[in-house]
């Protein structure tokens, strides 16, 4: 065998240079991992040491007793009853319930709107397709926070009040809130009524909630529309053609043939969007809706318990994300195509 001269001096036969121990295949991983572990440990120890030293100096060592002290602030809009005399933990719980309220309604709303938009991008009508495309491109390139303050300060706060309010049967939209008809005492159906210039109704939603919900739905729906569009596009074209050759209409084809198959692509994408909606709901603080984050911020300002409040916040949102993920993974198993 001819050797090329560029290979260099080859070892004499039978004399293989031993690999030095620090380059041995078994040793290298342990050395690398040991170095990483040591660095991480040193950094964590440094940070924790500082934390304990600084907290001791400030007299703020980790305790949870303050959760039982009276809060001293009020929350304007709650499902759980709350007032300033109740302890902090009740306030945080009321904030959590407010967060859950906007997240759940937002999930339902944005899924509906997003799915409709995603389906519209496969319409035969070019104008509808173009409009959907434009909507998605406009909404996705403008920051959510900007959209939220726009909905609140520009749209909802400029609604008329009193008799000038927007009125539909059973629904009144005014600057003071959204009033819905419902059952009053004794199972009477009561619509919104104007009493002394103030609207009264069995069910009132604040404009803060309305603006936050509208903004979240409008924003998330654009992303969900893209997920749905991708899912539908992943279904082979032959399915459309086969269904229409069997005499199914566009709508029937979409609902009965295409969407069920698209779901297995759509559901994992929805999971991401749902989690980001849950996290984005914390922007409520910008429009004055008292969600968990907003209550936590007030609590921190009053008690100075930075570490505990941040831990509570992070833990709660992490739990919320995990819960949504679990639900969606269950759904994902349901919609997977079962083959023999």
């Amino acid at each position, binding site marked *: 065998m001819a050797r090329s001269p560029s290979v260099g001096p080859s070892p004499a036969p039978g004399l293989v240079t031993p690999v030095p121990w620090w380059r041995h295949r078994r040793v290298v*991983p342990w050395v*690398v*991992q040991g170095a*990483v*572990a040591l660095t*991480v440990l040193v950094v964590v120890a440094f*940070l924790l040491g*500082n*934390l304990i030293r*600084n*907290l001791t100096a*400030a007299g703020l060592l980790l305790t949870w007793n303050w959760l039982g002290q009276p809060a001293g602030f009020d929350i304007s809009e709650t499902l759980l009853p709350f007032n300033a005399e109740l302890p902090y933990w009740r306030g945080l719980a009321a904030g959590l319930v407010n967060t859950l309220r906007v997240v759940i309604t937002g999930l339902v709303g944005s899924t509906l709107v997003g799915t409709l938009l995603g389906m519209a991008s496969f319409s*035969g*009508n*070019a*104008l*509808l397709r173009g*409009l959907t495309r434009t909507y998605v*491109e*406009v909404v*996705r*390139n*403008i*920051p*959510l*926070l*900007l*959209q939220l*303050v*726009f909905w609140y*300060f*520009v749209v909802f706060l400029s609604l008329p009040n009193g008799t000038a309010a927007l009125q539909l049967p059973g629904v009144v939209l005014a600057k003071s809130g959204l009033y819905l008809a419902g059952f009053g005492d004794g199972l009477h159906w009561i619509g919104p009524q104007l009493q002394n210039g103030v609207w009264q109704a069995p069910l009132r939603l604040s404009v803060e909630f309305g603006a936050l919900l509208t903004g979240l739905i409008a924003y998330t729906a654009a992303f969900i529309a893209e997920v749905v569009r991708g899912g539908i596009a992943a279904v082979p074209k032959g399915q459309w053609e086969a269904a229409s050759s069997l005499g199914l209409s566009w709508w029937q084809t979409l609902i009965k043939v295409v969407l069920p198959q698209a779901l297995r692509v759509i559901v994992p994408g929805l999971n991401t969007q749902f989690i980001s909606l849950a*996290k*984005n709901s*914390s*922007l409520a*603080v*910008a429009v004055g809706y008292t969600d968990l*984050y907003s209550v936590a*911020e007030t609590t*921190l300002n009053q008690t100075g318990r*930075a*570490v505990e*409040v*941040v831990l509570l*916040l*992070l833990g709660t*949102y*992490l739990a919320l*994300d*995990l819960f949504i993920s679990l639900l969606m993974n269950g759904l994902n198993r349901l919609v997977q195509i079962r083959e023999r």
Partner: protein
Amino acid sequence: MTPLLRRLRQDLFATPADGLVTVLLLALIGAGGFAVLHWALGQAQWAVIRANSTLFAVGRYPLDQQWRLWLLTALLAAATGLSWGMLRSHPRPDRGGSLWPRNDWMAVGMVALLSLALPSLLGLALPLQLRWWAIAALLLLLRWLAGRFGPLLPAPLKRCLPLGLPLLYLLGMVLIGGGLALEPVSPSQWGGLMLTLLESSFAILLCFPLGVLLALGRRSDLPLLRWGSVVYIEFFRGAPLITLLFLGQNMLGFLLPGGVAPERVWRAAWVLTLFAAAYLAEAVRSGLAAVPRGQLEAARSLGLSTPQAFTTVVLPQALRVALPSMVGQFISLLQDTTLLSLIGLMELLGTARTVMANPAFLGRNAEVYFTLAVLFWCCCAALGLGSRALERRLNPSTLA
């Protein structure tokens, strides 16, 4: 029927229901467009933007030091023109070797139009308008010079040119913040568009290496590296950004020895960086997953060490695949900088809040938010366009 009419009929009026939808949508678009135009040209009072244009651009940066920002803008324009011209001066197979493709003429038109129209629309004083014209002229001149004479430069010099960009970034930091014989300007005086761009560019530049390392760690065979990366990524992806910024503002002081904690602006920048790195890692991971395992094995069997195999064989392919989702992350990072206004920083939205709190401009929310929305939309859409152009350039089928 002409083909155009037939096409229109097929697209818009195929069935009676379709026709109805089309008519309804046309009415809706007409009404909406008319309402917006009527508001923008008739009712809106744009004085709030004209009177505060400096505030929106640079915040409360001291007036007597603003020449530094003008200098920086001119340098940035020069660098843009130079790199644009140099990029075009290299003949490439995907472009037919034209020095002035059609897109470039459109870009030149945009630059000229913006520099001529925007300053006068904003009602800037004539000297300031002249400065913008000069900056635009510098950009276009260097584009022409570099395109014309760039290929004549000696090769070593050409290779050194890209090094100028990181140097320019550092120089920009010095120009903004002071130091090196320049009077220091405290970060609390930075604001407006300048702060938005500074925070987002800082986070984009630093989150990139961090994100790549995390993605490699997450796919590593070493359990400790893998689990460490997983914990980091899932922690940052699980928490809302606002709670992390809140953590940075309130807890960082406790985590570091007394007095070492950085200025609020830098704290926020670091939190943004660490946050974006977790998302970028996921984008890069999907790119890594798209590279066949045989590539790494082939590289290793050719005698490349693992780091060499990754940097020269695997990563270039992975990053090319991951490019669209990475730019998507950069776009959302740019949008996320608006959250800094919630922790009291004076970036664009924070500046807008102070402007609207001014009694002279009370109730001018719509004008201000509309302007910011247009600004953000243009920046994000430009990033998206750039990403698509880069994708086309890096697409192996056009390079063959």
